[in-house]
């Protein structure tokens, strides 16, 4: 293989590896949004997911247990969000920000309490690549698509499954109707409150897992603030993707590509101060927002709380 081909293969492989947190957090955001719950706590929830996922893996020496705990914690945050917004009808942004702060605090507090301050960072083994038999032997493509860690496969399959569920099943249609017109959905016998709880909690599960991915694949340890805005970017991706699973998947691949580009250029050493390269994902997000403005489709009832006793929506 030539050098350029090697570089390109490596770039694409890294891109698919880096899309996972965006895909999982994006689909989690999408699910809640499809029933009208606009979650803005992703950054905090991912931090908690990263923190507890790392700690549980470190203590039990089992990465899958770590993932499970991160998902359960994410579900708890989702439950709180659902309770405060859907049952108590508090402002979704305000509740989301409160949960974001709580997540921020808990994520830094727990490792300090459980492990304490150590000279060298405590490490967990990172997730191994699982080559898919036969497929991984295909030149180039095999290495890029079929020799990845398990969560890369999971995030692709999850996106396809969510698409099928939302757009090809009856219950998916009911779910979407809650986010478009809850009053109409309610009158047709859809349990609006239950739908909103289920999607918000399930969304929390994905977001928690998205956080746990970072220590398990990138660093092997937890560092304060390691989510670095990926939670916020996931919200942006969900918006560009019009709250649809497949566009969210492609949006995540695109953002992962920018992230990897910034990283590669930084290592390559071009004389551009690395800080400006690190700004790239955020700047790109804003530019894309300008270009997709008016084109992205958002659930009509997004961000609002449903009160069946109210006459008007």
């Amino acid at each position: 293989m030539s050098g350029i081909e090697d570089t390109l293969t490596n770039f694409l492989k890294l891109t698919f590896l880096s899309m996972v947190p965006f895909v999982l957090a994006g689909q989690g955001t999408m699910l809640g949004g499809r029933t009208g719950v606009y979650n803005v706590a992703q950054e905090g929830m991912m931090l908690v997911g990263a923190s507890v996922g790392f700690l549980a893996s470190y203590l039990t020496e089992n990465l899958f247990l770590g993932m499970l705990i991160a998902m359960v914690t994410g579900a708890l945050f989702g439950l709180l969000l659902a309770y405060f917004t859907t049952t108590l009808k508090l402002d979704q942004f305000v509740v989301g920000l409160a949960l974001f702060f709580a997540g921020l605090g808990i994520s830094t507090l727990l490792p300090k309490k459980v492990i304490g301050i150590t000279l060298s960072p405590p490490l967990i083994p990172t997730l191994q690549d699982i080559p898919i038999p036969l497929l991984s032997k295909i030149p180039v493509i095999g290495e890029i698509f079929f020799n990845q860690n398990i969560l890369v496969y999971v995030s692709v399959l999850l996106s396809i499954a969510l698409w099928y569920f939302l757009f090809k099943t009856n219950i998916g249609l009911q779910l979407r109707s809650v986010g478009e017109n809850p009053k109409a959905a309610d009158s047709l016998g859809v349990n609006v409150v239950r739908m909103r709880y289920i999607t918000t909690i399930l969304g929390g599960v994905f977001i928690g897992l998205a956080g746990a991915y970072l220590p398990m694949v990138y660093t092997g340890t937890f560092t304060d603030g390691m989510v670095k805005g990926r939670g916020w970017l996931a919200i942006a991706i969900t918006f560009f993707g019009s709250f649809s699973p497949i566009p969210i998947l492609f949006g995540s691949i695109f953002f992962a590509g920018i992230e990897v580009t910034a990283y590669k250029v930084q290592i390559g050493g071009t004389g551009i101060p690395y800080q400006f390269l690190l700004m790239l994902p955020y700047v790109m997000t804003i530019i894309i927002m300008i270009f997709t403005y008016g084109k992205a489709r958002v659930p009509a009832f997004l961000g609002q709380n449903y009160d069946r006793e109210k006459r008007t929506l």
Partner: protein
Amino acid sequence: MRFIKSILPYLGAVVIAFVVAGIFIALMGYDPLEAYATIFGTSFKTPYAFVQTILKWIPLTLLALAFTIPYATGKFNIGGEGQMIAGAIGAAAVGILLSDMPIYILLPLEIVAGILAGALWGLVPAYLLYQFRINEILTTVLFNFIAFNLIDYVATGPWRDPTAGHPTTVAVGEGGFLPNLLSTQPINAGFLITIAVAIGIYIYTNRTVGGFELIATGANPKASHVHGINTRFLSVFSLVLGAALAGLAGAIEVAGTHHRLIEGLQSNFMQLGLIIGLIAGGNSLAVPFIAFFIAVLEVGARAMQRTMQIPVEMVFIVEALLLIFILLSNVVRRRK
């Protein structure tokens, strides 16, 4: 009597929040009573600790106002941190480039540069909101992350102080130092500026036509629009005004507290500013008082870490709980 009645659910929420946090502290194996004694007592034990509390109060108040002013029109400014950094960079740039200037030129220039840089940092998201109706929550947050990289560049770039271990610029000219108010304690004139700003904002929002229009926009945008208020402009204006105050906070940190640009000088001021603003329910008059309370907690929490080895992040949980229970108290009041 009515005031007491209206404040009662809040007090109840505060008490419950501290009880729940106390249980949490006890579960972690510490003595909650001793922890609270340290948290509440430290600020009032020594003049030095009290001055530290005031120095925290300055940026907290300004960043909380940076949130509550746009919040009054129904907009969320989550970019206070970035705007504060922009203000600090603006002030430091002027202070370093014009370091030979006398104080009556350099100091005002520095402060104005900070305010303008902060406002500019808020203007871009505000313009995107005005022109393209792009959600301001996302854009203001994204500008924070751009600012984190920018301050890292400036603090490690050509102005870097090579003798400092942490990324820091060289000092601004002596003409750019905010004067001290006391000879014995490091309390600077930023304190007076902040008091003046807080009073000014209160008068603006509660006693002027412009301020009334601002609040009307948030309370009922449709009705305000029908009555000829330019609601779209006001939401943009409120975001920029808020950002200018965050920029001022950055300038005061540079000119008053550090005399140079230090990476990380924004620390958690934005999150705390938001918590203060949300606890205040957007009421600008309540902000300085709640900010003082939070400043006491913050200074106390640092002492608690030193004397009891309880991680300082504990106070973050306390603050988040405070916010959550105060939100719940609003539900209780609504039901009555």
